């Protein structure tokens, strides 16, 4: 098939380009699984310990919504699969879709695909090579996870099933990203589209697991969990993942054959021949450049919040109608649901921090592409230029946090009929805002000192995700946990807000911004191309 000529060479080339990045991600993921699994083993050594824990977990719909169906919690393996399954699958899926997008639409947008395709390379080779490489990476992660579990003495079948469920989910999302790369012209939009599918898959699974399970069968994450690692393994759900991958790839190839290189499915329309009055202000200009991203993240978090709010309301009614459960949870249904929603607000805030960091690092993109140069050659200083983008990043963080809270509140109020929840939950979501600002501030400081340090902010976000989702499990020292700004955020709703802490977090963010802007004013602007 000449369509695929050059696939192997391209896959090897991509692996060579990113060998450090890929190796780092694989090792980090496997190490996190290993560390948290062995920690779980130490925390609940006896069957009695595990039974006590299982009793608090398996009937709690809020926990099930976050983690997935509770199966085999009396075994260590079952506990591991329950605690790590959903988050691990999301992590592998995220890595897969980012890498696939990078080798497809990003290369195409930068003009590299044009160079490659002008050589003796088939039309379908670039996306095929991308998916093949990412699938190989996912398989290595799956084997690594299985190996880690075997190493701490878990049964072979369950270890392989958990590893396979991670790999299968990752491969499906590599194919999702391959389709997304055919649809949009911009790499950023392609990544956003694929990530939105991942968000929907997570929410479908959560809703399905709390309900009768039907919706979970619509989610690739659900297929992975349906292999039931350590709880009577089933292998046939993996066929669903493979079939979906094949189908998605067929769609991607069909779209690829129908479009021109460099274009998406939607033809670009002509725009305005003159600029509107607001466009020529630093903030207006930055808003225009970031508008699409801001709208995308806002809608995404509104929907994510809405899904969490709806699941929370369902959990609430489940808890309220079962008097046995109601008595069991000492805080009552409201307390359990508040704790659940507080956790989802942390998840939402971590997503919002992703928006804020991406938004700050637009500065880096503008600089490295050379687009900053003609702007800085006009009568606008570096401070005002950067200030425009930072206004969008920090102001946008407020918008997306409000969206999370509003989405959650409206969905929750719609199901429970309690309209007072809308302002209450919106305020609760805003409790996470200063922590989001701290990570955005870190991005400003890093970028200001040197553009390539911008990646530090993404590493910090990865660390904050780890601390927030696995901190208790990993038994991290307090000093490490305290490094994450989210460790200082109030647990809202339900907990109490500490205004001095919020002020302190905001001050740290402001300080980081000041450092970044001062450093930016002193250094060379790197040239484009």
């Amino acid at each position, binding site marked *: 098939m000449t369509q695929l000529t050059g696939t192997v060479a391209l896959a090897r080339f991509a692996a060579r380009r990113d060998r450090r990045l890929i190796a780092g991600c694989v090792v980090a993921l496997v190490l996190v699984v290993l560390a948290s699994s062995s920690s779980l083993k130490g925390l609940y050594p006896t069957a009695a310990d595990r039974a006590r824990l299982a009793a608090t977990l398996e009937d709690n719909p809020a926990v099930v919504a976050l983690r997935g169906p509770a199966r085999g919690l009396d075994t260590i393996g079952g506990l591991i699969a329950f605690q790590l399954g959903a988050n691990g699958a999301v992590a592998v899926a995220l890595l897969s879709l980012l890498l696939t997008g990078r080798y497809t639409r990003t290369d195409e947008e930068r003009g590299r695909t044009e160079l490659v395709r002008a050589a003796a390379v088939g039309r379908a080779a670039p996306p095929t090579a991308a998916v093949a490489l990412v699938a190989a990476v996912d398989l290595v992660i799956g084997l690594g996870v299985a190996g880690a579990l075997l190493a701490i003495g878990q049964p072979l079948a369950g270890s392989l099933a958990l590893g396979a469920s991670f790999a299968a989910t990752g491969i499906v999302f590599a194919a999702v990203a391959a389709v997304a790369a055919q649809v949009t012209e*911009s790499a950023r939009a392609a990544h956003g589209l694929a990530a939105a599918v991942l968000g929907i898959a997570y929410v479908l699974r959560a809703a399905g697991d709390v309900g009768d399970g039907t919706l979970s069968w619509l989610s690739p994450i659900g297929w992975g969990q349906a292999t039931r690692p350590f709880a009577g393994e089933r292998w046939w759900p993996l066929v669903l993942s493979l079939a979906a991958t094949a189908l998605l790839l067929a769609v991607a190839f069909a779209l690829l054959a129908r479009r021109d290189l460099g274009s998406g499915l939607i033809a670009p329309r002509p725009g305005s*021949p003159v600029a509107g009055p607001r466009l020529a202000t630093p903030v207006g200009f930055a808003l225009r450049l970031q508008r699409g991203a801001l709208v995308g993240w806002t809608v995404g978090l509104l929907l994510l919040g809405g899904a969490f709010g709806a699941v929370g309301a369902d959990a609430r009614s489940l808890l309220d109608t079962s008097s046995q459960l109601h008595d069991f949870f000492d805080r009552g249904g409201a307390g359990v649901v508040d704790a659940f929603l507080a956790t989802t607000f942390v998840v939402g805030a971590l997503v919002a921090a992703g928006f804020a960091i991406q938004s700050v690092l637009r500065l880096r993109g503008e600089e490295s592409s050379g687009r900053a140069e003609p702007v800085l*050659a006009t009568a606008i200083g570096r401070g005002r230029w950067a200030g425009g983008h930072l206004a969008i990043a920090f102001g946008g963080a407020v918008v997306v946090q409000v969206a999370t809270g509003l989405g959650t509140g409206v969905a929750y109020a719609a199901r429970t009929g309690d309209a007072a929840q809308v302002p209450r939950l919106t305020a609760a979501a805003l409790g996470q805002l200063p922590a989001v600002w701290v990570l955005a501030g870190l991005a400003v400081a890093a970028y200001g000192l040197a553009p390539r340090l911008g990646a530090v902010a993404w590493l910090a976000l990865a660390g904050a995700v780890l601390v927030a989702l696995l901190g208790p499990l990993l038994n991290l020292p307090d000093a490490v946990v305290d490094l994450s700004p989210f460790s200082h955020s109030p647990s809202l709703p339900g907990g109490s807000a500490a205004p001095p802490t919020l002020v302190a977090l905001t001050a740290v963010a402001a300080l980081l911004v000041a450092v970044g802007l001062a450093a930016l004013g002193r250094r060379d*602007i790197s040239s484009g191309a």
Partner: protein
Amino acid sequence: MYDRPMAPAIEISGLVKTFGPTRALDGLDLTVRRGEVHGFLGPNGAGKSTAIRVLLGLLRADAGAARLLGGDPWADAVALHRRLAYVPGDVNLWPNLTGGEAIDVLGRLRGGLDPRRRAALLDRFELDPAKKGRTYSKGNRQKVALVAALAADVELLILDEPTSGLDPLMEEAFRTCVEERRAAGTTVLLSSHILAEVEALGDRVTIIRAGRAVESGTLADLRHLTRTSIVADTEQPPAGLGALAGVHDLHVQGDRARFDVDTSHLDEALRRLTQFGVRSLTSRPPTLEELFLRHYGDDLDGASADGAARDPAAAR
């Protein structure tokens, strides 16, 4: 800081800029007088863009002095930028902004542009301002930057290889625009490796090589340093030309001689030729191209910069 009325538009002396181990500028001197079109010539990587970025306050010089319109390019960047317009050599546009929007944004951030001149330039460069940035070809992206800069009412235009990607018709349109601006008293710094462009437009020229100015003066000044190419057919085979001072690249085939001669030694060479009975003779003043290639060639061979006599045949 005050602006001396007679201060040169650009005054650079001993400018040094290093990037790690690379010395991009190595003691550059450059003076651009008010109202002149100054050609800034050099091969790729000679340091032209680095010098321009220092002038724009985007890079901070490691040593040496730079004055722009009487001000400090780093400290007074914003105030100075109101008085100049810049065209980068490699124009990258915002993918989701139209060309017209990009022109207006750049113009207004500088302090406004003349809408009539904008319309005239769009017309002259045959540019559709309603297309999105990502759909423009390289030449059209270049036109966007040119329209944005030329539509501004400024004292100084800094143009970094402004015609890259333009077709010959558009190059001609560009030349006309620069001529008009010169007539209006605008100073132009025109960086280029396209010699015909500088020959056609430049009042004075500075040639930069490896981060240092190797020649500076009017085009006529520079030709004094250069050679004339001679092709002569003689009645008898010419002999003894190779022994003359100032003769280079001599090729004798039967009774035809081809050689270059330093302009200062032209008279002796012609006297010698006439001894053999000249039947036909063509002499050609050197193009800047040849002048330039010689500087570039010297650079490659690591020889001195003064255009000293070298025989390429001997170098092989």
